[in-house]
C-alpha cells in the first residue's frame, strides 16, 4: 500500500495543470507531460512517477476519459480527453488558483 505523501496543494496543482493541458485537445500521457514542460518553458517538469497516478486519479473522478488510439508516429497510445465535468472543474480550479496566486503575490510584494 502506498500512502499519499504529497501535500494536497501540490497534488491539486498537478491535477489542474493536467486538466489545463488536456483542455487544449486530447493527448496521451507522454504528450501531457511534454505539453506542460513546453508551455512552462521547461520550468515545470512532470515526473513520470507523479503523472500517471495523477491521470488515473483524475480519470476516476470522471474529469477525463481515456481511449486507445494511434499516435502521430503510428503507435498504439492511450489518449486522454477532457469531459464536460472536467471542463467545469478546470474552471473552478483556475479561479481558486488565481485567488491563491494573487494572495501570495500580495503577501510577497509587501516591503
Amino acid at each position, binding site marked *: *500500500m*502506498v500512502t499519499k505523501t504529497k501535500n494536497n496543494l501540490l497534488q491539486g496543482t498537478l491535477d489542474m495543470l493536467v486538466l489545463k493541458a488536456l483542455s487544449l485537445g486530447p493527448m*496521451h*500521457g*507522454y504528450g501531457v507531460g511534454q505539453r506542460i514542460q513546453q508551455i512552462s518553458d521547461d520550468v515545470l517538469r512532470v*515526473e*513520470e*512517477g507523479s503523472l*500517471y*497516478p495523477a491521470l*488515473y*486519479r483524475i*480519470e*476516476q*473522478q*470522471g474529469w477525463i476519459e481515456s481511449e486507445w488510439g494511434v*499516435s502521430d*508516429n503510428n*503507435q*498504439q*497510445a*492511450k489518449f486522454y480527453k477532457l469531459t464536460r465535468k472536467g471542463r467545469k472543474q478546470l474552471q473552478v480550479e483556475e479561479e481558486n488558483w488565481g485567488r491563491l496566486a494573487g494572495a501570495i503575490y500580495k503577501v510577497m510584494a509587501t516591503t
Partner: protein
Amino acid sequence: MAWLKTLAARLRAVWNTDAVHQDIDQEMQFHIRMRTQENIERGMSPEDARRDAEQRFGNTGRIKDMGWDVRGGGWLETLWQDVRYGARMLRKHPGFSLMAILTLSLGIGANTAIFSIVNGVLLRPLPYPEPDQLDFVFQQNSAMNRFGVSVADFQGMEKEYAKIGSVAASTNRAVTLTGGERPEQIKATFVTAAYFKILGVNPASGRAFVTGEDRPDKEPVVVISHGFWERHMAGKTETIGQRLTLDGIGYTVVGIMPQGFVAPSTASPEIWPILQLQTPKRRGPFTLRVIARRNAGVSEQQGQEELQRIARGVFAQWAHTFPDANATYVSTPLKQALVGNIGTTLLVLFGAVGCVLLLASVNVANLLLARASTRQQEIAIRAALGASRFRLLRQLFTESLLLAVLGGAVGLLLAVWGVDMLLALSPDNIPRLDQVKVDGWVMGFAALGTFLSCLVFGLVPGLYSVNPDLGEPLKGGGRGSAEVPGRRRLRDLLVVVEFALALPLLIGAGLMINSFMRLQQVKPGFDPDHLLTVQLPLPSQKYPEEEKAANFHKEMMRRVQMLPGVSSASIATHLPMEGGNTNDFVLEIRPTPPGKSSEVAEFTSVSPEYFHTLSIPLLKGRYFTEQDNENAPPVMVISETMAKRYFPGEDPIGMRIKTGGCEECPWTTIVGVVGDVKNEGLSAEIEPAMYCPFTQESFGIRMMTLILRTDADPASLVPSVRREVNSIDPDLALANIKTMDQLMSESLGQSRYRGVLLGIFAIVALTLAAVGIYGVIAYAVNQRTHEIGIRIALGAQKRDIFRLVVWHGMILSIIGVVIGVGASLALTRFLTSLLYGVSNTDPATFTGVVLLLIGVALLACSIPARRAMRVDPMIALRHE
C-alpha cells in the same frame, strides 16, 4: 454518485485483474518508447536513451502499484484476497472450521429463534393505529385481585369517559351456530357498538357497528372474521345482509373484517356479535372486559384519574348492592395487559440464549487462539515481509468474519426450523404467537448477532496474534517453543468466563425443572384419571327459563350415565384447573363491617354427583343429594381452606351464609366440608371455595360442563355422548371436548415450556463449557509435552502428572463456578415469579449444579490428563 462509479470500476478491476494490469503496462511501454526516441533525437546512443527513459520512471513496479492502487480493486481487492485466503485456511482445517461454524450456528440460531418470538410477542406494536392510546379497564379491590366490570359499571363509564375518549365492552362466549350440516360451536366475542371504532380497524367489506346498535331493542347484527367468511360462507361476496342463527337467534351479517385482523384477546374469536346490554338491577356480576381509547393528547395518567373519578360516582350510586370501599377502576396499557406475565418468561429465555451465544463465541475464540499459536510463524513471516499490523489484523478479522457469516447463515436456517419447533412446543395461552415470523427484523437481528459474536471471538485472539515481536517465533522454528504467557493467561481466562456463564444458565434450568417436577407432584385434590369433560352451551333463546335448562341437564345426565363405560356423570359451571367464578359472601355470625369489602371465594354450581365423579373426599357433614333441589332450603358445601379460614376452631356445619350481595335472599346453610381442589391451576395458591347445587343456584346454568368418569379411554366415549345429547336436542353442539389429563397438562404448559427450553439451552451451555475446557487443557498438555517428559524422566509418578494437569483445569473451573454462583444469586431473583415451590436460591439446586459442572470439568480434564500420563519421556525429549 461518484463513489458508486468508483465501486463499479473497482469491482470490474477485481473481476478482470489482468486487463487492467496490461493496460497500465502498455501505456508505460509507450511512454518509454517515446522518451527513448526523443533521447535518440537529442543525440544519445540507443542504449543510453532507453536506460534513461526507464530510469525516469524510477521503480516501475512502484508506479504500477500506484496505478493499481487508483485503478485496481483497492480495498475491495484486498478484501477479496483475504476472503479467498480465509476460505482456503478454513478448507485446509475442516475439523476446526466445522466445529467453529456449528458452535456459532447453534448460538446464533437459538438467539434468532427466541428473538423472533420476543419480537412478535413483546416488541412488535399492536396492529392498531396509535396503539399507545389503548387501555384495558379492570376493577380492582386489592393489589392482587383484579376482575371485570358489570353492566352497571360499563354504562356509567360509557357516559362519563366520553370527555377524554371512548370505551367499549366485550365478553367472550362460545355460541352454537345452527343451520349447517350439524350444530357447531363458534368462538365469539360479543362487543358493544364502539368496539371496532376504538381499535381503529374497519371491516374490509360491509360496515362496522353504528352507535346505538347495542341497545336491546335494536336488530341483532354480527361482524365476522375473514377466516369464518371463507370457511362458512365459502368466501361469497353476497354475504353482507345474510343471517346467521347463533344460539337460536337470527343475526344479520353487516361486515367482514380484513384478513389478518387480530382481536386483542387470546380467545381468538371468529365472529363478533353485537353485545346488547339491558339496564341492570344491581352492580354485578363482573363479566365484561372493557377496552378504552384515550383521545390524542390524553396521557395514561389522566385516563387513570378520570376512571377513578368515574368509579366514585358509579360506586356511590350502586353502593346498596355492592358496598366495597376499596374497589376502583384501573387501566393497563392494552399491550401490557395482553402480554401479561409471558414477558418475564420470554426475557429469561432471551437472557439464556444470549449466554449461549456468548459461550459459543468464547469457545470459537479459544479455538482461534489455539490455532493462532500454530500460525505464529506464518504471521511473523508476513510481518517481516512488511505487512503492517493493521493489514494482518484485517486479514485475521476477515477470516473470523467468514466463519461468523457461515455460522450465521447456518444459524438462520436453524432459527427458521427452531421457530416452528418453539411454536409447536408453546402452550396455547401465550398471546400474540400469530405475530411470530422470521422477517426483516429477525434477519437483521441474526446479522447483528453474527457481527457481535465475530467481534468477541475474532478481535481478541487477533490482537494477540499480531504480536509485534517477530524474533521469538521465527527463532523458535515453531517447534516446542513455550507459549507466550499472555496468550496462555487469556486462554485460561476464557475458560473461567465460560464456566461463569454456564453456571447461571444451568441453575436457571435446574430451578425451572425443579419447579416443574414439584408442580407435577402437586395433588390436585381429585383423581384426574379417566375423566372426560364436554361443555354444553344451551342457547338462551331455546332455554329461556332456567328450569328448562335444568331439566335438560337432568335428562342428559340420566341418559349418559347409562352409557356403557361411564361409571359416573355430573355437571359443573367450572372445571378444576380452568379457573372459574368468584362470589362475595357474608357470614351470619360475623357480618362484614360497613365500608369493608366482603370476602370472596370461588363459586361453583354442581350436580350432586360432582364430588363423587371427581373423587373429592368428604371431610365433614354430607355431600349434596337429589333432595337438595329448588324446593328444598338452600345448602352449600365448602372447601377445607374455606372452613379453616373463616371458621377457625368452629364447626362450619349448620352455619349460614349469603352470597352475591343479595340481601333479601334466604340464608344458605353449610352442610358439608370437602377436600381442597386446585381450581385455578396447579401452580395457583389454594383459595377458599364454595359449591352449590345447580338446581338452587342457577347462575351459569346455560354454560355447564359435563364431566364423565369412564372405565375405558375417555376420548372413545365422545360419539356416544354426542348421540345422547342430540337425541334430546338435535341443535346442540359439544364444545371444548377434553380429557382431564389434557387440562392438567395445559395447566403445566408454561412451566413445561420454560423447563424444556431452558433445559435445552443449559445442555448446550454445558456441552460448550465442557468442550471449551477440554480444548484448553488438551492444548496445554500438548504444549507441555516436553516439560512433562522431563518431569517423568526426573522421577515424577504418573499420579503426579495426572494431578498436575487436572489441577490446572480444576482451578479454572472452580474460579469460574465461584463467579457464576455470585452471578446466579444476583440473577435468579428475576425468576422468582416463575418458580413454584422452590426458592430462587434453592441450596439443593445450587449444590447440584455446582457439583455437576465441576464433575463435567473433571471428566473433560481427565482425558488430556490421561494422555499426559502416557507421555514417553524418551520420545518427548528426542522430539526436541
